Protein backbone atom coordinates (compact mmCIF):
# COMPACT_ATOMS: atom_id res chain seq x y z
CA UNK A 1 0.00 0.00 0.00
CA UNK A 2 1.71 3.19 -1.11
CA UNK A 3 0.05 5.28 1.60
CA UNK A 4 2.14 3.46 4.19
CA UNK A 5 5.28 4.26 2.21
CA UNK A 6 4.32 7.94 2.31
CA UNK A 7 3.81 7.70 6.05
CA UNK A 8 7.32 6.27 6.40
CA UNK A 9 8.68 9.13 4.26
CA UNK A 10 6.94 11.56 6.60
CA UNK A 11 8.52 9.89 9.60
CA UNK A 12 11.94 10.03 7.93
CA UNK A 13 11.46 13.75 7.40
CA UNK A 14 10.51 14.20 11.06
CA UNK A 15 13.67 12.28 12.03
CA UNK A 16 15.82 14.62 9.94
CA UNK A 17 14.21 17.64 11.54
CA UNK A 18 14.83 16.20 15.01
CA UNK A 19 18.48 15.49 14.20
CA UNK A 20 18.96 19.03 12.91
CA UNK A 21 17.25 20.44 15.99
CA UNK A 22 19.76 18.58 18.14
CA UNK A 23 22.62 20.33 16.36
CA UNK A 24 21.15 23.80 16.75
CA UNK A 25 20.28 23.49 20.46
CA UNK A 26 22.69 23.39 23.36
CA UNK A 27 24.06 24.92 26.53
CA UNK A 28 26.26 27.40 24.65
CA UNK A 29 24.41 29.99 22.61
CA UNK A 30 25.38 29.67 18.95
CA UNK A 31 23.44 31.41 16.20
CA UNK A 32 21.91 29.15 13.54
CA UNK A 33 24.29 30.79 11.07
CA UNK A 34 27.32 29.79 13.16
CA UNK A 35 26.07 26.21 13.36
CA UNK A 36 25.42 26.04 9.63
CA UNK A 37 28.89 27.45 8.84
CA UNK A 38 30.51 24.98 11.23
CA UNK A 39 28.64 22.11 9.62
CA UNK A 40 29.64 23.17 6.10
CA UNK A 41 33.29 23.92 6.95
CA UNK A 42 34.36 21.34 9.53
CA UNK A 43 38.05 22.20 9.10
CA UNK A 44 37.64 25.96 9.55
CA UNK A 45 38.57 25.88 13.23
CA UNK A 46 37.16 28.03 16.01
CA UNK A 47 34.79 27.53 18.92
CA UNK A 48 31.68 26.92 16.84
CA UNK A 49 33.31 24.09 14.90
CA UNK A 50 34.58 22.51 18.10
CA UNK A 51 31.20 22.71 19.82
CA UNK A 52 29.23 21.43 16.85
CA UNK A 53 31.58 18.62 15.82
CA UNK A 54 32.90 17.32 19.11
CA UNK A 55 30.01 18.07 21.45
CA UNK A 56 26.69 18.30 19.64
CA UNK A 57 27.13 16.02 16.64
CA UNK A 58 28.21 13.02 18.72
CA UNK A 59 25.39 13.69 21.18
CA UNK A 60 22.83 13.74 18.39
CA UNK A 61 24.31 10.63 16.80
CA UNK A 62 24.35 8.84 20.16
CA UNK A 63 20.77 9.83 20.92
CA UNK A 64 19.59 8.69 17.49
CA UNK A 65 21.43 5.37 17.88
CA UNK A 66 20.02 4.72 21.34
CA UNK A 67 16.51 5.64 20.16
CA UNK A 68 16.68 3.40 17.12
CA UNK A 69 18.16 0.48 19.05
CA UNK A 70 15.67 0.58 21.93
CA UNK A 71 12.63 1.16 19.71
CA UNK A 72 13.51 -1.71 17.38
CA UNK A 73 14.41 -4.02 20.27
CA UNK A 74 11.09 -3.29 21.97
CA UNK A 75 9.20 -3.85 18.76
CA UNK A 76 10.89 -7.21 18.13
CA UNK A 77 10.29 -8.50 21.67
CA UNK A 78 6.64 -7.36 21.73
CA UNK A 79 6.08 -9.24 18.48
CA UNK A 80 8.00 -12.33 19.50
CA UNK A 81 6.28 -12.64 22.89
CA UNK A 82 2.89 -11.50 21.56
CA UNK A 83 2.73 -9.17 24.52
CA UNK A 84 2.26 -5.41 24.13
CA UNK A 85 3.59 -4.65 27.62
CA UNK A 86 7.08 -6.00 26.99
CA UNK A 87 10.02 -3.60 26.93
CA UNK A 88 13.60 -4.29 25.82
CA UNK A 89 14.86 -4.52 29.39
CA UNK A 90 12.71 -7.61 30.01
CA UNK A 91 15.56 -9.93 29.01
CA UNK A 92 17.61 -8.74 32.00
CA UNK A 93 20.12 -6.85 29.85
CA UNK A 94 19.80 -3.57 31.72
CA UNK A 95 19.81 -5.06 35.22
CA UNK A 96 22.81 -7.27 34.42
CA UNK A 97 24.71 -4.35 32.93
CA UNK A 98 23.75 -2.14 35.86
CA UNK A 99 24.93 -4.67 38.42
CA UNK A 100 28.26 -5.06 36.62
CA UNK A 101 28.72 -1.29 36.48
CA UNK A 102 27.83 -0.96 40.16
CA UNK A 103 30.33 -3.64 41.10
CA UNK A 104 32.86 -2.08 38.71
CA UNK A 105 32.49 1.30 40.38
CA UNK A 106 32.84 -0.34 43.79
CA UNK A 107 36.04 -2.02 42.67
CA UNK A 108 37.38 1.26 41.33
CA UNK A 109 37.42 0.42 37.62
CA UNK A 110 38.14 3.53 35.54
CA UNK A 111 35.07 5.24 34.05
CA UNK A 112 36.03 4.79 30.34
CA UNK A 113 35.91 1.01 30.77
CA UNK A 114 32.45 0.94 32.34
CA UNK A 115 30.37 0.97 29.10
CA UNK A 116 32.24 -2.05 27.76
CA UNK A 117 31.85 -3.80 31.10
CA UNK A 118 28.11 -3.08 31.07
CA UNK A 119 27.80 -4.29 27.50
CA UNK A 120 29.51 -7.60 28.25
CA UNK A 121 27.51 -8.14 31.43
CA UNK A 122 24.25 -7.30 29.66
CA UNK A 123 24.96 -9.86 26.94
CA UNK A 124 25.95 -12.45 29.52
CA UNK A 125 22.71 -11.89 31.45
CA UNK A 126 20.62 -12.24 28.29
CA UNK A 127 22.45 -15.46 27.48
CA UNK A 128 21.61 -16.76 30.95
CA UNK A 129 17.96 -15.81 30.51
CA UNK A 130 17.83 -17.49 27.09
CA UNK A 131 19.46 -20.60 28.56
CA UNK A 132 16.77 -20.76 31.27
CA UNK A 133 14.00 -20.08 28.73
CA UNK A 134 14.95 -22.67 26.14
CA UNK A 135 12.69 -25.63 25.49
CA UNK A 136 13.66 -28.23 22.95
CA UNK A 137 15.43 -26.32 20.21
CA UNK A 138 13.30 -23.22 20.69
CA UNK A 139 12.47 -20.59 23.26
CA UNK A 140 9.39 -20.61 25.43
CA UNK A 141 7.81 -17.16 25.78
CA UNK A 142 6.51 -17.67 29.29
CA UNK A 143 9.81 -19.06 30.56
CA UNK A 144 11.63 -16.14 28.95
CA UNK A 145 9.48 -13.61 30.80
CA UNK A 146 9.84 -15.46 34.12
CA UNK A 147 13.61 -15.87 33.77
CA UNK A 148 14.06 -12.24 32.68
CA UNK A 149 12.00 -10.86 35.54
CA UNK A 150 13.71 -13.05 38.15
CA UNK A 151 17.28 -12.33 37.06
CA UNK A 152 16.45 -8.62 36.77
CA UNK A 153 15.20 -8.65 40.37
CA UNK A 154 18.39 -10.34 41.52
CA UNK A 155 20.66 -7.86 39.74
CA UNK A 156 18.58 -4.90 40.91
CA UNK A 157 19.22 -6.11 44.45
CA UNK A 158 22.97 -6.10 43.71
CA UNK A 159 22.71 -2.53 42.43
CA UNK A 160 20.83 -1.47 45.58
CA UNK A 161 23.43 -3.18 47.74
CA UNK A 162 26.28 -1.42 45.93
CA UNK A 163 24.51 1.93 46.31
CA UNK A 164 24.06 1.51 50.07
CA UNK A 165 27.66 0.30 50.54
CA UNK A 166 29.35 2.95 48.42
CA UNK A 167 27.85 5.92 50.17
CA UNK A 168 28.79 9.11 48.33
CA UNK A 169 31.94 7.82 46.70
CA UNK A 170 30.97 6.58 43.29
CA UNK A 171 27.25 6.26 43.79
CA UNK A 172 26.81 9.28 41.54
CA UNK A 173 28.20 7.34 38.62
CA UNK A 174 25.73 4.54 39.26
CA UNK A 175 22.78 6.88 39.76
CA UNK A 176 23.55 8.76 36.56
CA UNK A 177 23.62 5.45 34.78
CA UNK A 178 20.31 4.33 36.29
CA UNK A 179 18.61 7.59 35.31
CA UNK A 180 19.80 7.28 31.73
CA UNK A 181 22.17 9.88 30.33
CA UNK A 182 24.36 10.57 27.34
CA UNK A 183 26.62 12.99 29.20
CA UNK A 184 30.32 12.21 28.78
CA UNK A 185 29.82 9.84 25.85
CA UNK A 186 31.31 10.56 22.46
CA UNK A 187 32.47 9.27 19.10
CA UNK A 188 34.64 6.52 20.57
CA UNK A 189 31.73 4.81 22.40
CA UNK A 190 29.62 5.14 19.26
CA UNK A 191 32.40 3.61 17.19
CA UNK A 192 32.87 0.45 19.19
CA UNK A 193 29.14 -0.19 19.71
CA UNK A 194 28.22 0.40 16.06
CA UNK A 195 29.09 -3.13 14.83
CA UNK A 196 26.66 -4.55 17.39
CA UNK A 197 23.96 -2.05 16.44
CA UNK A 198 24.39 -2.80 12.74
CA UNK A 199 24.49 -6.53 13.44
CA UNK A 200 21.34 -6.30 15.55
CA UNK A 201 19.50 -4.37 12.84
CA UNK A 202 20.55 -6.92 10.20
CA UNK A 203 19.31 -9.81 12.33
CA UNK A 204 16.07 -7.88 12.88
CA UNK A 205 15.65 -7.45 9.13
CA UNK A 206 16.11 -11.19 8.63
CA UNK A 207 13.53 -12.02 11.30
CA UNK A 208 10.82 -9.57 10.30
CA UNK A 209 9.13 -11.53 7.46
CA UNK A 210 8.23 -14.29 9.93
CA UNK A 211 6.88 -11.82 12.48
CA UNK A 212 3.39 -11.47 10.98
CA UNK A 213 2.96 -15.25 10.94
CA UNK A 214 4.27 -15.56 14.50
CA UNK A 215 1.51 -13.18 15.63
CA UNK A 216 -1.00 -15.91 14.70
CA UNK A 217 0.49 -18.33 17.23
CA UNK A 218 3.26 -20.84 16.75
CA UNK A 219 0.85 -23.46 15.34
CA UNK A 220 -0.21 -21.39 12.33
CA UNK A 221 3.35 -20.05 11.93
CA UNK A 222 4.67 -23.63 11.64
CA UNK A 223 1.86 -24.62 9.30
CA UNK A 224 2.67 -21.83 6.82
CA UNK A 225 6.34 -22.82 6.85
CA UNK A 226 8.02 -20.63 9.48
CA UNK A 227 10.97 -22.14 11.32
CA UNK A 228 9.66 -20.93 14.68
CA UNK A 229 12.79 -21.81 16.66
CA UNK A 230 15.07 -20.00 14.20
CA UNK A 231 12.78 -16.96 14.06
CA UNK A 232 12.65 -16.69 17.85
CA UNK A 233 16.43 -17.02 18.23
CA UNK A 234 16.95 -14.34 15.58
CA UNK A 235 14.47 -12.00 17.22
CA UNK A 236 15.94 -12.52 20.67
CA UNK A 237 19.55 -12.12 19.47
CA UNK A 238 18.72 -8.95 17.57
CA UNK A 239 16.84 -7.43 20.50
CA UNK A 240 19.63 -8.37 22.92
CA UNK A 241 22.46 -6.93 20.83
CA UNK A 242 20.57 -3.69 20.28
CA UNK A 243 19.57 -3.35 23.94
CA UNK A 244 23.04 -4.14 25.29
CA UNK A 245 24.62 -1.59 22.96
CA UNK A 246 22.03 1.04 23.87
CA UNK A 247 22.49 0.38 27.59
CA UNK A 248 26.26 0.67 27.25
CA UNK A 249 25.82 4.06 25.57
CA UNK A 250 23.14 5.61 27.71
CA UNK A 251 22.31 3.58 30.81
CA UNK A 252 18.63 2.90 31.36
CA UNK A 253 16.60 5.08 29.03
CA UNK A 254 13.11 3.86 29.78
CA UNK A 255 9.84 4.05 27.91
CA UNK A 256 11.28 4.38 24.39
CA UNK A 257 11.24 0.62 23.89
CA UNK A 258 7.74 0.32 25.32
CA UNK A 259 5.94 3.29 23.76
CA UNK A 260 7.56 3.77 20.37
CA UNK A 261 6.40 0.41 18.94
CA UNK A 262 2.83 1.31 19.95
CA UNK A 263 3.06 4.70 18.26
CA UNK A 264 4.57 3.05 15.20
CA UNK A 265 1.72 0.55 14.89
CA UNK A 266 -0.75 3.39 15.39
CA UNK A 267 0.74 5.25 12.47
CA UNK A 268 1.47 2.56 9.86
CA UNK A 269 -0.62 -0.39 11.05
CA UNK A 270 0.48 -3.73 12.41
CA UNK A 271 2.27 -5.20 9.38
CA UNK A 272 5.69 -5.95 10.89
CA UNK A 273 7.65 -4.76 7.87
CA UNK A 274 6.24 -1.24 8.04
CA UNK A 275 5.99 -1.12 11.82
CA UNK A 276 9.69 -2.00 12.15
CA UNK A 277 10.70 0.89 9.90
CA UNK A 278 8.32 3.24 11.68
CA UNK A 279 9.66 2.18 15.11
CA UNK A 280 13.22 2.84 13.99
CA UNK A 281 12.40 6.29 12.57
CA UNK A 282 10.33 7.28 15.61
CA UNK A 283 13.19 6.23 17.89
CA UNK A 284 15.58 8.36 15.83
CA UNK A 285 13.15 11.27 16.17
CA UNK A 286 12.11 11.13 19.81
CA UNK A 287 15.35 10.47 21.66
CA UNK A 288 17.40 13.25 19.98
CA UNK A 289 14.48 15.62 20.62
CA UNK A 290 14.33 14.59 24.26
CA UNK A 291 18.11 14.90 24.56
CA UNK A 292 18.01 18.40 23.05
CA UNK A 293 15.35 19.29 25.63
CA UNK A 294 17.38 17.78 28.44
CA UNK A 295 20.37 19.95 27.48
CA UNK A 296 18.49 23.18 26.92
CA UNK A 297 15.76 23.35 29.58
CA UNK A 298 17.99 24.31 32.53
CA UNK A 299 21.50 24.99 31.20
CA UNK A 300 24.15 24.32 32.17
CA UNK A 301 22.73 21.39 34.16
CA UNK A 302 21.08 18.50 32.31
CA UNK A 303 17.90 16.65 33.17
CA UNK A 304 18.71 12.93 32.89
CA UNK A 305 17.42 11.65 29.56
CA UNK A 306 15.60 8.68 31.09
CA UNK A 307 13.83 10.95 33.56
CA UNK A 308 12.75 13.38 30.85
CA UNK A 309 11.46 10.60 28.60
CA UNK A 310 9.45 9.15 31.47
CA UNK A 311 7.95 12.59 32.21
CA UNK A 312 6.89 12.97 28.60
CA UNK A 313 6.29 9.31 27.82
CA UNK A 314 4.03 8.28 30.69
CA UNK A 315 1.36 10.96 30.04
CA UNK A 316 1.52 10.16 26.32
CA UNK A 317 1.06 6.48 27.01
CA UNK A 318 -1.79 7.09 29.42
CA UNK A 319 -3.46 9.44 26.96
CA UNK A 320 -3.16 6.94 24.13
CA UNK A 321 -4.38 3.88 25.97
CA UNK A 322 -6.36 4.86 29.00
CA UNK A 323 -8.62 7.53 27.61
CA UNK A 324 -11.98 7.11 29.36
CA UNK A 325 -14.20 6.35 26.41
CA UNK A 326 -12.51 4.49 23.85
CA UNK A 327 -10.17 2.41 22.00
CA UNK A 328 -8.03 0.81 24.65
CA UNK A 329 -6.64 -1.82 22.34
CA UNK A 330 -2.93 -2.20 22.86
CA UNK A 331 -2.09 -3.57 19.45
CA UNK A 332 -2.28 -1.85 16.20
CA UNK A 333 -4.45 0.67 14.54
Amino acid at each position, binding site marked *: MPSRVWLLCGLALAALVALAAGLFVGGTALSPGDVARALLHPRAGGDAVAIVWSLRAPRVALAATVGAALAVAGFLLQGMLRNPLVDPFLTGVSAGAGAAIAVGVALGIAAPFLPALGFAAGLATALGVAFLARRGTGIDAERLILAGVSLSALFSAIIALALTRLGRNGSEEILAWLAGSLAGRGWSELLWTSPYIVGGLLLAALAVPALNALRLGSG*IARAVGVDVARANWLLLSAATLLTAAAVALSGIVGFVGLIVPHLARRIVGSDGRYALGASLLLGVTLVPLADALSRSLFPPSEIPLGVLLAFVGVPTFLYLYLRPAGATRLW*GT
Partner: protein
Amino acid sequence: MGHLNVAAVRLSIGERTLLENVDLHVVPGRLCAIVGPNGVGKTTLLRCIAGFAEPAAGAILIDGVSVGSMPRAERARAVTLIGSDAESPQGMSVREVVLTGRFARRAWWDWTTGEADHFAADAAIERVALAPLADRSFDTLSSGERQRAWLALALAQDARTILLDEPTSHLDVRHATSVAALLRSLADEGRAVLAALHDLSEAAAIADDVALLGDGRLLAFGPADDVLEPELLERAFGIAFERARVAGAWRVFPRAPIRRNFSH
Protein backbone atom coordinates in the same frame (compact mmCIF):
# COMPACT_ATOMS: atom_id res chain seq x y z
CA MET B 1 -1.52 -34.73 -5.91
CA GLY B 2 -1.93 -34.81 -2.16
CA HIS B 3 -1.98 -38.55 -1.52
CA LEU B 4 -1.60 -38.93 2.22
CA ASN B 5 -0.40 -42.23 3.63
CA VAL B 6 -0.11 -42.91 7.33
CA ALA B 7 1.53 -46.30 7.81
CA ALA B 8 1.93 -48.21 11.08
CA VAL B 9 2.32 -45.01 13.05
CA ARG B 10 2.82 -45.03 16.79
CA LEU B 11 2.44 -41.79 18.75
CA SER B 12 3.96 -41.26 22.16
CA ILE B 13 4.07 -38.41 24.64
CA GLY B 14 7.18 -38.98 26.70
CA GLU B 15 7.11 -42.62 27.79
CA ARG B 16 3.36 -42.97 27.38
CA THR B 17 2.07 -44.48 24.14
CA LEU B 18 -0.96 -42.58 22.91
CA LEU B 19 -1.86 -44.42 19.70
CA GLU B 20 -0.54 -47.53 18.02
CA ASN B 21 -0.81 -49.04 14.55
CA VAL B 22 -2.50 -46.14 12.84
CA ASP B 23 -2.88 -46.83 9.13
CA LEU B 24 -4.89 -44.52 6.97
CA HIS B 25 -4.82 -42.96 3.57
CA VAL B 26 -6.56 -39.95 2.12
CA VAL B 27 -6.57 -39.36 -1.62
CA PRO B 28 -7.25 -36.08 -3.41
CA GLY B 29 -10.94 -35.33 -3.65
CA ARG B 30 -11.82 -37.15 -0.46
CA LEU B 31 -12.66 -35.80 2.96
CA CYS B 32 -11.67 -37.96 5.90
CA ALA B 33 -13.01 -37.29 9.39
CA ILE B 34 -11.04 -38.28 12.48
CA VAL B 35 -13.46 -39.19 15.23
CA GLY B 36 -12.87 -40.31 18.79
CA PRO B 37 -13.18 -39.32 22.44
CA ASN B 38 -11.36 -36.37 23.98
CA GLY B 39 -7.71 -37.04 24.74
CA VAL B 40 -7.45 -40.03 22.40
CA GLY B 41 -4.75 -38.32 20.33
CA LYS B 42 -6.55 -36.67 17.42
CA THR B 43 -4.65 -33.41 17.78
CA THR B 44 -1.31 -35.18 18.24
CA LEU B 45 -1.96 -37.26 15.12
CA LEU B 46 -2.75 -34.14 13.10
CA ARG B 47 0.38 -32.39 14.39
CA CYS B 48 2.50 -35.37 13.33
CA ILE B 49 0.94 -35.43 9.86
CA ALA B 50 1.62 -31.68 9.57
CA GLY B 51 5.28 -32.35 10.39
CA PHE B 52 5.29 -30.50 13.73
CA ALA B 53 6.34 -33.63 15.59
CA GLU B 54 7.87 -36.98 14.67
CA PRO B 55 5.89 -40.16 15.26
CA ALA B 56 7.58 -42.65 17.58
CA ALA B 57 7.37 -45.26 14.84
CA GLY B 58 5.94 -45.69 11.36
CA ALA B 59 5.84 -43.43 8.31
CA ILE B 60 3.80 -40.43 7.21
CA LEU B 61 4.05 -39.84 3.47
CA ILE B 62 2.53 -37.24 1.19
CA ASP B 63 2.85 -38.13 -2.48
CA GLY B 64 5.41 -40.72 -1.44
CA VAL B 65 7.69 -38.30 0.45
CA SER B 66 8.12 -38.45 4.21
CA VAL B 67 6.68 -35.28 5.76
CA GLY B 68 9.43 -35.16 8.38
CA SER B 69 12.17 -35.11 5.76
CA MET B 70 10.65 -32.34 3.61
CA PRO B 71 12.31 -28.93 3.59
CA ARG B 72 10.08 -26.42 5.31
CA ALA B 73 8.92 -24.54 2.21
CA GLU B 74 8.16 -27.78 0.36
CA ARG B 75 6.23 -29.08 3.34
CA ALA B 76 4.13 -25.92 3.45
CA ARG B 77 3.00 -26.68 -0.11
CA ALA B 78 2.26 -30.31 0.71
CA VAL B 79 0.31 -29.91 3.92
CA THR B 80 -1.11 -27.31 6.28
CA LEU B 81 -2.84 -27.55 9.66
CA ILE B 82 -5.41 -25.14 10.98
CA GLY B 83 -5.20 -25.95 14.68
CA SER B 84 -7.68 -25.10 17.39
CA ASP B 85 -4.92 -23.06 19.09
CA ALA B 86 -4.72 -20.40 16.37
CA GLU B 87 -4.53 -16.97 18.00
CA SER B 88 -6.49 -14.02 16.73
CA PRO B 89 -4.08 -11.12 16.52
CA GLN B 90 -5.26 -7.66 17.46
CA GLY B 91 -4.91 -5.04 14.79
CA MET B 92 -4.15 -7.34 11.86
CA SER B 93 -6.65 -7.14 9.03
CA VAL B 94 -8.26 -10.24 7.55
CA ARG B 95 -6.22 -9.72 4.37
CA GLU B 96 -2.95 -9.51 6.34
CA VAL B 97 -3.81 -12.73 8.17
CA VAL B 98 -4.63 -14.55 4.94
CA LEU B 99 -1.47 -13.21 3.27
CA THR B 100 0.67 -14.98 5.86
CA GLY B 101 -0.41 -18.20 4.14
CA ARG B 102 1.96 -17.14 1.33
CA PHE B 103 5.01 -17.18 3.61
CA ALA B 104 6.60 -20.27 2.05
CA ARG B 105 6.26 -18.92 -1.51
CA ARG B 106 9.36 -16.81 -1.04
CA ALA B 107 12.65 -17.06 0.84
CA TRP B 108 12.15 -16.83 4.60
CA TRP B 109 14.10 -13.57 4.83
CA ASP B 110 12.36 -11.94 1.85
CA TRP B 111 10.36 -8.81 2.76
CA THR B 112 8.29 -8.56 -0.41
CA THR B 113 4.78 -9.77 -1.14
CA GLY B 114 4.17 -10.01 -4.85
CA GLU B 115 1.23 -9.59 -7.16
CA ALA B 116 0.60 -13.35 -7.12
CA ASP B 117 0.43 -13.37 -3.31
CA HIS B 118 -2.17 -10.60 -3.18
CA PHE B 119 -4.13 -12.26 -5.97
CA ALA B 120 -4.15 -15.62 -4.16
CA ALA B 121 -5.14 -14.00 -0.86
CA ASP B 122 -8.00 -12.04 -2.43
CA ALA B 123 -9.23 -15.11 -4.31
CA ALA B 124 -9.18 -17.14 -1.09
CA ILE B 125 -11.07 -14.44 0.81
CA GLU B 126 -13.63 -14.31 -2.00
CA ARG B 127 -13.89 -18.11 -1.89
CA VAL B 128 -14.92 -18.16 1.78
CA ALA B 129 -17.31 -15.22 1.23
CA LEU B 130 -15.41 -12.78 3.44
CA ALA B 131 -14.67 -10.21 0.72
CA PRO B 132 -16.75 -7.47 2.40
CA LEU B 133 -14.73 -7.95 5.59
CA ALA B 134 -11.27 -8.19 3.99
CA ASP B 135 -10.03 -4.91 5.47
CA ARG B 136 -11.68 -5.41 8.86
CA SER B 137 -9.51 -6.08 11.87
CA PHE B 138 -9.39 -9.84 12.44
CA ASP B 139 -10.29 -9.57 16.12
CA THR B 140 -13.63 -7.95 15.29
CA LEU B 141 -14.82 -11.08 13.45
CA SER B 142 -17.25 -13.59 14.97
CA SER B 143 -16.04 -17.14 15.66
CA GLY B 144 -17.65 -18.40 12.47
CA GLU B 145 -16.07 -15.66 10.36
CA ARG B 146 -12.69 -16.33 11.97
CA GLN B 147 -12.90 -20.00 11.10
CA ARG B 148 -13.68 -19.09 7.49
CA ALA B 149 -10.71 -16.69 7.51
CA TRP B 150 -8.42 -19.51 8.70
CA LEU B 151 -9.73 -21.62 5.83
CA ALA B 152 -8.91 -18.74 3.49
CA LEU B 153 -5.36 -18.76 4.87
CA ALA B 154 -5.09 -22.47 4.05
CA LEU B 155 -6.48 -21.79 0.57
CA ALA B 156 -4.00 -18.96 -0.04
CA GLN B 157 -1.25 -21.32 1.09
CA ASP B 158 -2.59 -23.74 -1.53
CA ALA B 159 -1.38 -26.86 0.28
CA ARG B 160 -2.32 -30.15 -1.37
CA THR B 161 -3.43 -31.67 1.93
CA ILE B 162 -5.44 -29.63 4.40
CA LEU B 163 -5.69 -30.71 8.04
CA LEU B 164 -8.20 -29.16 10.41
CA ASP B 165 -8.52 -29.61 14.16
CA GLU B 166 -12.17 -29.25 15.21
CA PRO B 167 -13.05 -26.59 12.64
CA THR B 168 -16.72 -26.45 13.67
CA SER B 169 -16.40 -26.48 17.45
CA HIS B 170 -17.79 -23.39 19.20
CA LEU B 171 -19.82 -22.46 16.14
CA ASP B 172 -23.57 -22.03 16.05
CA VAL B 173 -25.44 -24.37 13.77
CA ARG B 174 -25.62 -21.96 10.86
CA HIS B 175 -21.89 -21.15 10.88
CA ALA B 176 -21.00 -24.78 11.54
CA THR B 177 -23.01 -25.74 8.47
CA SER B 178 -21.34 -23.13 6.28
CA VAL B 179 -17.86 -24.22 7.43
CA ALA B 180 -18.77 -27.88 6.88
CA ALA B 181 -19.98 -27.04 3.37
CA LEU B 182 -16.66 -25.30 2.68
CA LEU B 183 -14.72 -28.37 3.86
CA ARG B 184 -16.77 -30.53 1.51
CA SER B 185 -16.14 -28.21 -1.42
CA LEU B 186 -12.38 -28.11 -0.71
CA ALA B 187 -12.36 -31.88 -1.14
CA ASP B 188 -14.60 -31.70 -4.21
CA GLU B 189 -12.07 -29.34 -5.79
CA GLY B 190 -9.47 -32.09 -5.58
CA ARG B 191 -7.67 -31.58 -2.29
CA ALA B 192 -7.16 -34.20 0.37
CA VAL B 193 -8.92 -32.97 3.52
CA LEU B 194 -8.51 -34.51 6.97
CA ALA B 195 -10.53 -33.02 9.81
CA ALA B 196 -10.94 -33.95 13.47
CA LEU B 197 -14.68 -33.64 14.13
CA HIS B 198 -16.78 -34.06 17.24
CA ASP B 199 -20.23 -33.96 15.71
CA LEU B 200 -20.80 -37.53 14.51
CA SER B 201 -23.83 -36.64 12.40
CA GLU B 202 -21.83 -33.90 10.74
CA ALA B 203 -19.07 -36.41 10.01
CA ALA B 204 -21.66 -38.80 8.58
CA ALA B 205 -23.04 -36.04 6.39
CA ILE B 206 -19.85 -34.62 4.85
CA ALA B 207 -17.05 -37.19 5.18
CA ASP B 208 -16.20 -39.83 2.61
CA ASP B 209 -14.12 -41.81 5.05
CA VAL B 210 -13.91 -41.92 8.81
CA ALA B 211 -10.99 -42.87 11.02
CA LEU B 212 -12.35 -43.91 14.40
CA LEU B 213 -9.85 -43.68 17.25
CA GLY B 214 -10.39 -45.25 20.65
CA ASP B 215 -8.70 -47.34 23.25
CA GLY B 216 -5.22 -46.26 22.13
CA ARG B 217 -5.53 -47.38 18.54
CA LEU B 218 -7.28 -46.96 15.24
CA LEU B 219 -10.51 -48.92 15.79
CA ALA B 220 -11.75 -48.59 12.24
CA PHE B 221 -10.98 -46.80 9.03
CA GLY B 222 -13.23 -46.89 6.00
CA PRO B 223 -16.30 -45.41 4.30
CA ALA B 224 -18.23 -43.18 6.69
CA ASP B 225 -21.41 -45.28 6.64
CA ASP B 226 -19.46 -48.43 7.59
CA VAL B 227 -17.50 -46.87 10.44
CA LEU B 228 -20.14 -44.64 12.02
CA GLU B 229 -22.27 -47.52 13.21
CA PRO B 230 -23.43 -48.07 16.79
CA GLU B 231 -21.30 -51.06 17.74
CA LEU B 232 -17.97 -49.52 16.70
CA LEU B 233 -18.90 -46.15 18.20
CA GLU B 234 -19.75 -47.81 21.50
CA ARG B 235 -16.29 -49.37 21.59
CA ALA B 236 -14.71 -45.97 21.03
CA PHE B 237 -16.82 -43.82 23.34
CA GLY B 238 -18.08 -46.33 25.92
CA ILE B 239 -21.76 -45.43 25.54
CA ALA B 240 -24.53 -46.91 23.41
CA PHE B 241 -25.49 -45.26 20.10
CA GLU B 242 -28.37 -45.30 17.69
CA ARG B 243 -28.54 -44.05 14.17
CA ALA B 244 -31.28 -43.20 11.77
CA ARG B 245 -31.47 -42.05 8.20
CA VAL B 246 -32.82 -38.53 7.86
CA ALA B 247 -33.15 -37.12 4.36
CA GLY B 248 -30.68 -39.64 2.99
CA ALA B 249 -27.90 -39.09 5.55
CA TRP B 250 -27.20 -40.98 8.75
CA ARG B 251 -27.83 -39.17 12.01
CA VAL B 252 -25.92 -40.59 14.94
CA PHE B 253 -26.93 -40.00 18.55
CA PRO B 254 -26.50 -41.53 22.00
CA ARG B 255 -29.15 -44.14 22.87
CA ALA B 256 -29.79 -42.85 26.39
CA PRO B 257 -29.68 -39.09 26.14
CA ILE B 258 -30.13 -36.94 29.19
CA ARG B 259 -33.78 -36.00 29.36
CA ARG B 260 -35.59 -33.35 31.27
CA ASN B 261 -38.33 -34.56 33.52
CA PHE B 262 -41.55 -34.82 31.50
CA SER B 263 -43.85 -35.52 34.48
CA HIS B 264 -44.65 -31.86 35.17
